[in-house]
């Protein structure tokens, strides 16, 4: 397993379609593709938290209840290109990448904050690993750790994707998020064992 260099990234991006690493669109390859990473842009849809609608988040309360409560807890906002999105200090918002990605089975990746935005306090991902075989737009967990509100715009380069090859024979990736094109609500309720750890029906403890 090794980190892909700029030259290798270009090689994977130019392969025939079935074997290609797809990042579409790369609006400006010169500015976006670096030694070892590709810059990703912010998309137009955001998922916000409606704190007043929800007393707390207990992930173990059963799939149906949790599903409904997550939908109630979060809501979507869309912005046009050139329209501001203000991220306040300590606010967590889900955003998405403008780019749609398709990873071949032999490539994995990590999404990281771009350091220039990180220095302003913007963290863009807490769940950073991208599985080989993933297809879709990535959901970014945007968090402002700074002390002043940050003005964001759809299209700005906030994240970087670090790519690497996979050792051994690649398997088939199965994700609970099927070809997302926008940020997705959490589907933590699909973790079967959550109920056991939270409220088991019959337990020795």
């Amino acid at each position, binding site marked *: 397993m090794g980190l892909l260099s700029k030259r290798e990234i*270009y090689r994977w*991006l*130019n392969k025939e*379609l*079935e074997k290609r690493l*797809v990042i*579409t*669109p*790369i*609006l*400006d*390859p010169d500015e976006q593709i670096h030694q070892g990473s590709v810059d990703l842009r912010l998309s*137009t849809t955001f998922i916000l938290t409606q704190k007043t609608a929800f007393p707390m988040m207990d992930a173990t309360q059963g799939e149906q209840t949790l599903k409904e409560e997550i939908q109630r807890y979060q809501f*979507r*906002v*869309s*912005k*046009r*290109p050139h*329209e501001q999105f203000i991220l306040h200090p300590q606010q967590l918002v889900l955003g998405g990448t*403008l780019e*749609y990605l*398709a990873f071949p089975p032999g490539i994995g990746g990590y999404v990281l904050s771009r350091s220039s935005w990180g220095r302003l306090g913007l963290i863009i991902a807490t769940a950073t690993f991208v599985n080989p075989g993933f*297809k879709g*737009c990535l959901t970014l967990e945007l968090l402002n750790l700074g002390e002043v509100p940050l003005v964001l715009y759809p*299209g700005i380069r906030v994240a970087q994707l670090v790519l690497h090859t996979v050792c051994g024979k690649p398997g088939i990736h199965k994700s609970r998020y*099927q*070809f*997302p*094109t*926008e940020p997705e609500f959490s589907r933590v309720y699909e973790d079967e064992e959550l109920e056991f750890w939270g409220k088991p029906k019959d337990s020795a403890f």
Partner: protein
Amino acid sequence: MNDDLRSSAFLKAEQIFEHSARLKILPFPSLNPTLFATFICDVCEKLKSRMSSPDGGDRETTLIPIFLVDQIAPTLRFIEGASSENTPASLVVPVERIGEAVLPGSKFMVCRQWRYNYSVRELRRRLEEDLKGLLPEAEHNALFKALPERLFAISFPSFERDNALLHVNFAHEIAHPLERAYLTQEDQTRILQDLRKEVEKVIAEKDRVRRAREIGANVGHGARMRQAALMEVLSDTISAHVFGPSALFALHEVATLSRSMDKISADLHPPWRFRLRHILKVLEELDFVDPRTFQLRGWPKEIPASISHVRGKVDGWLHNLHQITEITTDIDEIERSFPGKQAYDSADRALPAVQKFAAESVTQRYTPTLFSEEVPGLLERLHASLPPNRIEYTLTNNRAVRLASILASAWLFKLGELAPVFGQDRHAYVQRVQTLNRLVLKAIQLSEIQTEYAKRPRKQDNGTPKQA
């Protein structure tokens, strides 16, 4: 005017003003709904000050509350229905652009409606007319200066928001306002005289007064039938010019939901079978469909293996559709009806003129050449679960594609690759169609952003801007 009425009117204006001000700040996918909401706020402000003004006459001030409730309040639903949340947001700007190309000087507001229907409605003219009596001329003119010459709300069935493929029907609605332009170039007197002659042959009533009355009523009814038939044909033709074969696919999807393929509807719309037959003929004339084999034209000589099966399935679908249009039960129905037969005979004679008018109204036509260049590559992308936003041979050898190609590839993918899934696993079929719609809406968004981004001036090494 008594104070009860005055206070009531003032309150209505205030409520509508507040409501429009709230709507104005909703997130919209384009600027047009904000423009209209601002206009409504301005109208309310003017009317409120008119009611407070000492020179406002009783007549005007009595009419103001009626105008507010009857005319202004109902228009708020268009603004609300145009928010990003309620619309297929990425499709809105391209649809507005098509509208502005077909009807220069007009603007469009894409919004949802709860009726299962696509429709179009002009928002400016009636307001302009009715406000004339309520505001001084200078104020009236200043208000309407802020609005485009014509502003249309084009509505889609709310629960079809994400059904990007079906929204090809927007092109049909955009074309409806052209009706008047077409009709003014027809010799209406001669048409009515001809229709009258045909109607007279049928009405055998001996009482002269009753006969005259019956002839008059049937000529009127027949003229409306003729007009409705021609106008649907005009809009379908324009839709075919703008979107090519997708116009047929989308029309068919709506037609399948109708109670009858053969009857003229209560609002005098022609039978669906009649419209499908006509649009198929237009596609043959535009060279999208082979008139002998009823197969889709425009495929490259060598179709990539991953999508080669799509061609056969789509041709099979077209063959079935051709058989549907070969059945003439709609024509039998029309032939039996009076004055349907007379109206449709007259409409038939006008069809070439309607088609010519439609062709001349579309400046940016979708052609089989564009289809051939773009659609197979986009189909390959859909097959690989990628958005069909661009032909990307390599990272640097790529090019933008047209909205019509994105939608055509999606339709072919649905008919050729997804339709067979329905017979195997209905749940999987629904999921795959939903994914297709998501990919198409994403592709439209990306294609728009790519086109805009390419216009961006870039800095050269010495810091001076250069064209991308």
